[in-house]
């Protein structure tokens, strides 16, 4: 396999430094029907997240009388990738991602405030270029907040890993494919609590520490983008005055 050079003249293929995340912009509440929604453009990723709830749990007999249950669906559009038309329907990867993202929201959402209800989170990847679960979760967090659902923190996610001897954050698809480790991490920023962590590859203990630190540092910018999106949504609502 011809592994492409991911690092040229000490810089990454798109010119970024190792600790630099791609450009990112989030728009809150772009959808009319959903109770909350957000659209994220992170590098070349284009992802739509939406929330319905709290609503009546269906089927009723599976509801939990003491708290809300969360359902999460992460899915990639068949036209979202750089290669061929993909098959429809969730594959095993998507199902696993749906599960680990759901578990993040089961932590930060104050489930006990909505007993017996259901909260549905949808993440649709319209265009993907590496780090889609991190971008999707980051958008979903804004969507949940925009729905007014009680949360303890505005959680975000970012990926980190290793390319040769360099620890780096926020991999594009090509970096993801050829890196020596890729690790998505979701963080509740108030106490820097890690709520999602998946890793595969080859890393020493020291490299792991460095990667996690770099992710936490880079994540601050992600969190700022989320906050800006929410503030802008209310400024925007004011502009529609007429």
């Amino acid at each position, binding site marked *: 396999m011809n592994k492409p050079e991911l690092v040229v003249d000490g810089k990454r293929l798109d010119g970024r430094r190792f600790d630099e995340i791609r450009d990112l912009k989030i728009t809150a509440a772009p959808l009319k029907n959903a*109770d*909350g929604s957000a659209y994220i453009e992170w590098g070349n990723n284009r992802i739509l997240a939406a929330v319905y*709830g*709290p*609503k*009546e*749990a269906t089927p009723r007999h599976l509801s939990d*009388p*003491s708290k809300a249950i969360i359902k999460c669906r992460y899915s990639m559009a068949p036209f979202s990738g750089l290669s061929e038309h993909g098959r429809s329907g969730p594959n095993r990867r998507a199902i696993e991602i749906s599960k680990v993202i759901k578990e993040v929201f089961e932590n*930060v959402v*104050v489930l006990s*405030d*909505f*007993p*017996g*209800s*259901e909260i549905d989170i949808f993440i649709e990847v319209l265009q993907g270029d590496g780090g889609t679960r991190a971008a999707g979760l980051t958008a979903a967090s804004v969507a949940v*907040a*925009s*729905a*007014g*659902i*009680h*949360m*303890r*923190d*505005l959680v975000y996610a970012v990926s980190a890993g290793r390319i040769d001897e360099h620890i780096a954050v926020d991999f594009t698809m090509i970096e993801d494919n050829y890196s020596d480790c890729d690790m998505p991490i979701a963080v*509740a*920023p*108030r106490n820097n609590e890690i709520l999602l962590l998946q890793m595969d590859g080859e890393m020493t203990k020291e490299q792991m520490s460095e990667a996690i630190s770099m992710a936490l540092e880079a994540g601050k910018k992600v969190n700022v983008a*989320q*906050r800006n999106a*929410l*503030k802008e949504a*209310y*400024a925007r*609502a*004011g502009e*529609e*005055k007429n």
Partner: protein
Amino acid sequence: MRDMIIPGDMVSDKPLRIANGFIQNGKTYSKVLGVYDAAERTIIPLEGSWMPRLEDSVVGIITEARPKVYIVDLSYFGRALLIPGKYDRYEFQPGDIISALIKNIEGKNTIILEDPKPLEGGTILSIKPKKIPRVIGKKSTMVRQIAEYSGTHIVVGMNGLIWLKDGNIALATEALLKVEREAHLSGLTDTIKNFLEKNKSE
């Protein structure tokens, strides 16, 4: 605009037992996207589902008529029941619209209603529950001006369902949706008044 607070933001370095807030390590944080009124020490959520309170007045639709209880749809995730007492003389069919009061909340999410009044004809508009206080306005000034200009009979439910009948329902609906969109802005009463005057004759 007052500073917006985001879930997880600290609103006080003291532990305050306030709605929409939670305490951790002796400090108070917000659970919601909202605005913090430091003087009143209240967190005002900008969005969110209706949290029922005793004596709230609601608008709902009868969905089931069982021998001893009516099931009522309040667009709420829990159950809402209307249980006629021994001396109650009302009778409803599925599909009937009613206004009612919250008598009790049982088991955390089951609402018991009382004092139902039928609302015949008309239509229902669904507004985000957190905007309802603004739709009503101080001493009902906002909803009254909308009703006046449109000539529409309006009954507002705290649960976010609003019953509208007769008059210029389209105008009333537009005005109500405008309040919903701009609820967080100041000078809204005048804005709506201007809107109603401008569009009244169309």
